[in-house]
């Protein structure tokens, strides 16, 4: 909107707060911003709403360490002051990491996000092999990772491997950077389901915990954190 000041907020959503769905997170921040007393800008009309834009929604149950939203303020405010005021309106499990002002005309974070980094940690299981190593091998061994995407009308078969920008082994976990956003949104579950399908492993016998570490903009390999 004209005459407003845009800020990008980076936050963490961990612990029990990972159980909040996207809409609940949105409402949580709307109320937190209101409590913080920041001069948030509103849309016009009879039912004005806060000018907020959230980057890619995070699935229920997944912790996020690099989550983002943009907000528009009516006045220019000091970034540190914004961070402190927001942070004092949080609860256990949500932490404001950074706030920076965006230049005029910059794309909002929902439109900017192009990739997301996830950590995949396998939980205790009965298998005598290392599932992380196995998943990593699966990724490297196959030239194509073909999945079937069902929509209401049709079934589409396509190769997600080009959309998995990176896959590494770190501290016994698998770390992936996946295409994310409105065009090619690859959820980590898609990758894992392809692995279960290919190996024939029963997903209930090998559970994992996902964490989203960071969101990026730009095109791979030139990704930049949001």
């Amino acid at each position, binding site marked *: 909107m004209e005459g407003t000041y845009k800020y990008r907020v980076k936050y963490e959503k*961990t*612990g*029990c*707060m990972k*159980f*909040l*769905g996207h*809409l*609940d997170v949105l*409402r*949580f921040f*709307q*109320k*937190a*911003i*209101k*409590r913080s*007393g920041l001069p948030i800008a*509103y849309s016009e009309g*009879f*039912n*004005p709403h806060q000018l907020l834009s959230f980057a890619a929604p995070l699935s*229920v*149950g997944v912790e996020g360490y690099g989550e983002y939203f943009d907000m528009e303020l009516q006045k220019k405010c000091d970034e540190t002051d914004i961070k402190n005021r927001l942070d004092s*309106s949080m*609860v*256990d*499990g949500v932490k404001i990491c950074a706030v920076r002002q965006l230049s005029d005309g910059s794309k909002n974070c929902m439109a900017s996000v192009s990739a997301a980094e996830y950590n995949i940690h396998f939980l205790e299981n009965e298998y005598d092999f290392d599932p992380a190593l196995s998943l990593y091998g699966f990724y490297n061994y196959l030239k194509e990772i073909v999945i079937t995407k069902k929509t209401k009308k049709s079934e589409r078969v396509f190769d997600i491997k080009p959309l998995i920008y990176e896959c590494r082994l770190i501290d016994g976990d698998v770390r992936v950077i996946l295409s994310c956003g409105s065009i090619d949104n690859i959820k980590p579950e898609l990758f894992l389901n392809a692995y279960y399908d290919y190996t024939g492993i029963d997903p209930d016998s090998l*559970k994992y*915990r996902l964490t989203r570490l960071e969101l990026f903009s730009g095109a791979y390999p030139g990704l930049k954190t949001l």
Partner: protein
Amino acid sequence: MRKLALSDDILLQVEKPARYIGNEVNSIIKDPDSCDIRYAICFPDVYEIGMSHLGIQILYEQFNRRPDVWCERVYSPWPDLSSIMKKEGISLFALESQDPLGEFDFIGMTLQYEMCYTNILQIIDLAKLPLFSRDRKDDMPIIMAGGPCTYNPEPIADFFDIIYIGEGETSYDSLFDLYKTMRASDDYSRRKFLREASKIPGMYVPSLYEATYNADGTLKDFSAIYSDVPAKVERQVVEDLNETAYPMKPVVPHVQAIQDRVTLEIMRGCIRGCRFCQAGMIYRPKRERSLDTLKKYAYEMLKNSGHEEISLSSLSSSDYSKLPELLDFLIEHCNDEKINISLPSLRIDNFSLDVMKKVQDVRKSSITFAPEAGSQRMRDVINKGLTHEDIINGSKEAFLGGWTKIKLYFMLGLPGEEEEDIRAIPELGDEIAMLYYDTIPKEERSGRCQVTMSTSFFVPKPFTPFQWAGMFPKEEYLRRARIVNDHMKEQLNKKSLRYQWHQADVTVLEGILARGDRKLSAVIKRAYELGCIFDAWGEYFDLDKWEQAFSDCGIDGDFYIMRTRDKAELFPWDFIDCKVSKAFLLREWERASKGVVTPNCSMSCSGCGCRPLSTGICMTH
């Protein structure tokens, strides 16, 4: 990091896991070792419903003001989680500490509607406690109830150790002090404590009373077992609402509550005296909060919660004496802050239409009237102080003000209702629609007006003038709804009329539970065993199971509702001194049968019995 009672695995299997994690803004965490009393306050329905309830928030604030008490919240686990907990033997827990309910000193439930009765048992059962009070041991929590349903506590009497009759603000300190003292002594026992607690005003201990019955099934006698236990339990009433606790820092729910907003209770009680309305009787007399108090509350609550909507709460907001001043303040404050104002229960007149124009989008919103009955004769029977002229004038002003949608609420199955009274409902709707076309010139209209009528089926409640009234079989209610529907289609402006009605399945059961006696505890328990929970939710209500429960227990539900009760009958709830006297209610019942209206409390005192309380509207005469 917070410890949760449920594993990630379980939380990810259930709908809306955020219902169960606690950790909300303004929820209160204390050190359990520093508290003598741990109280779990419970609304026996799902989180989003329970979190919308003001009473719990008030008590939560009030209890937690005491450094020796830690009060936490509990809501009913949704059936998906409930069955997992049952299967895996997980105990129900309080949201704040996530500790099992069995470790608490008290569990207190608010009972707002009869259809939550099986949920009471779900809570107690999941807490791994015996369902009946008599089976509980000394080291188990004291289980209490309060709220409007407890004005006839008898159907649920066997489940509770103490039932509190009245407004929560008054007697809990005495109860907590007593508990602390007795608990600290070497020979604490539950029995001794309950005996002493029964002497605190408003505290009803069902196990200390005995009922005997006549051969026809009606109550013969109801009395205390011991001479030191009060024969009558007196409703407790707050004298000055400016002095009581109020949740200036409301807990902000994580999952969107049904009422996701600040609730400002502007007054308690109602002057109107509608004869069907229990709230209009049991919260008498009308007492207001001062303008200054309310301004402060509104400001603080909005600031501390971050809510973007505020709603006035009362039984009839137009009767608040400083309403214009309060609304001026709210409109000014809320406009700057982009906060919505919601104004339920306003009488429709020029003043309220003016206010509504300021706070809502006229094009999108509708104007609501609650005539409750279609004919003026019936409105006089129920003492609804709303005339045909009021409705017509209000509608006309609304149309002139730009509104095109009118909603009308009615009840069907009222005592003395004749076919012509039923037919009067669509006729009134038609008259209003006609008024639109007569009032608004063709070139200024944007399409048709829309008059929506909706009916609910009337259920007689204790402590109302209609407590003597009989009900009807389910089919009869539906027949009456069909008369409205068919007759609507015969109206000239039928294309501008809409009609909505409810199913009658729960009506009859609600009626039985509302005016039942102690024998019903067995039926409720049986229904729970057969799998009934969340009866207030259409998708879970199972009438067949309830019918089986009645037959398994050998109890005829019709006995409680299908007869007009004799004026001399002793009611199961008559041992409660509600302050509104039975003589007054009987007078009103007789006046109703003659269609005679009774003036409201601001016009003159009708001697309901509340005057000795010496507060509120009673002091103005």
